Each structure stands twice: as structure tokens, then as C-alpha cells.
């Protein structure tokens, strides 16, 4: 069973990975993205993620469906945190279970790359001297 969630609560990445494991599978690959203290040399104090929630969930489900067409995978979990995040907290988890780990690695890498391009979520960084909406994250 796939899992697509937006949450304002802290993400437990181990629990996320565990929730998508089917008994016939051999490997799960999990990408854990988190709040960096320094980006482009500037110190971030905390940040806020905002989403167009219903559309973000639809886009996450579409990515899941496309990933299943491209890779031989069993289950997918995508959880994105919203609201205020402190340094070091997990912002996103993408976890993929597959019979063979190569598919899990490839699908996980593909999903996070696409998520950053298509899922309507925006990041606002707060500094000691102000704040900025992030226009493009690491591609």
C-alpha cells in the first residue's frame, strides 16, 4: 500500500519506511531531506513550508503512478512536512520498497527529483536579518 502524506508533525523516517514494506520485498531505499543550517553561505534559523495541500497530494499520487510504470517496485511512501521546521528536522521522506534494490534506488532518486519540480510546496527561510522565499532548491 502506498502512502502519501502532508503533516505538521515531526516525521519518523524509520516508521515511514516500515509502513510500506511488503513481505515479498528485499530492500527499501529511503531519502531523508532535512533543514540545513547553512545554504549559500547564509545561516538559516528556521523555515516554513507551505503547500497547496489537495493539489500537492494529487501530484504526489501521480508521481507514484508514474514511478510504478518506470520501475519494478512494490510500494512507495512520500511524506512532506509543513509549517515551521527547526534546523536538522526532516522536511521530506521518500521511501521505496522493491524486490531488487536497484529499482528501489532508481525509483527513490527519480521521485525526489520530480517532487522538487512538480509538487506545489514552497519553502521560506528565516535568517537573523530577514527571510526569503526559496525560488529553486537543489535540482
Amino acid at each position: 500500500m502506498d502512502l502519501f502524506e502532508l503533516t505538521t508533525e515531526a516525521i519518523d523516517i524509520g516508521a515511514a519506511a516500515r509502513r510500506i514494506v511488503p513481505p515479498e520485498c528485499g530492500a527499501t531505499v529511503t531519502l531523508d531531506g532535512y533543514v540545513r543550517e547553512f545554504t549559500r553561505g547564509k545561516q538559516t534559523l528556521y523555515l516554513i513550508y507551505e503547500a497547496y495541500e489537495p493539489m500537492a497530494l494529487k501530484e504526489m499520487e501521480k508521481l507514484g503512478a508514474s514511478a510504478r510504470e518506470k520501475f519494478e517496485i512494490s510500494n512507495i511512501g512520500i511524506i512532506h512536512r509543513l509549517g515551521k521546521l527547526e534546523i536538522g528536522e526532516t522536511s521530506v521522506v521518500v521511501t521505496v520498497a522493491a524486490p531488487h534494490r536497484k529499482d528501489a534506488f532508481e525509483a527513490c532518486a527519480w521521485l525526489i527529483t520530480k517532487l522538487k519540480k512538480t509538487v506545489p510546496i514552497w519553502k521560506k527561510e528565516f535568517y537573523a536579518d530577514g527571510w526569503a522565499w526559496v525560488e529553486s532548491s537543489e535540482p
Partner: protein
Amino acid sequence: MNSTSIKVNVLFFGAAAELTGKRNEEIAFPAGVNAAGARESVLAAYPLLGERYRGSLLFSLNEEYADGGEVLKDGDELAFFPPVSGG
């Protein structure tokens, strides 16, 4: 409102909400307007939004990315937002 206009629920997200000063607004458009036409009207109505995002402002119709050719209907939900930065 007359019978040749439609009402659309317009949403703004991220920096687009700050540049318009609102998160949502009901806007009347002439019947038959398409999504690209509505986008032009909105950019014209909010000059700071147009200045900052004329070329890059994304938009969706009823929670799906729009390509611009879609003809709007009364009660549609049209959203405007900057390039996404989740992850």
C-alpha cells in the same frame, strides 16, 4: 454580474500570496475566458506579482497544472504560485 460572466475562486500561494496581499479572492471573468487569459488579467491587476513573476508564475485549474487553453467555468478553482521549492 451578468449572464456573460463567470465567478472563479482564485488562490495564491507562497510569494504570490505576499505580492497580492491575499490567499484567495473570488474574481469575475467574461464567459469563455481561458486560463491563460485569466492569468494575464491577474498579472495586470497585481503589478508587483507581474513584475516579479511574469515569465515564471505557475497556475493550476481545479488542482491540476493548467496549460492555458482550458476554458474556465463558473465555480472553477484557479491557483497561482511561484516555481515550487519543496523537498
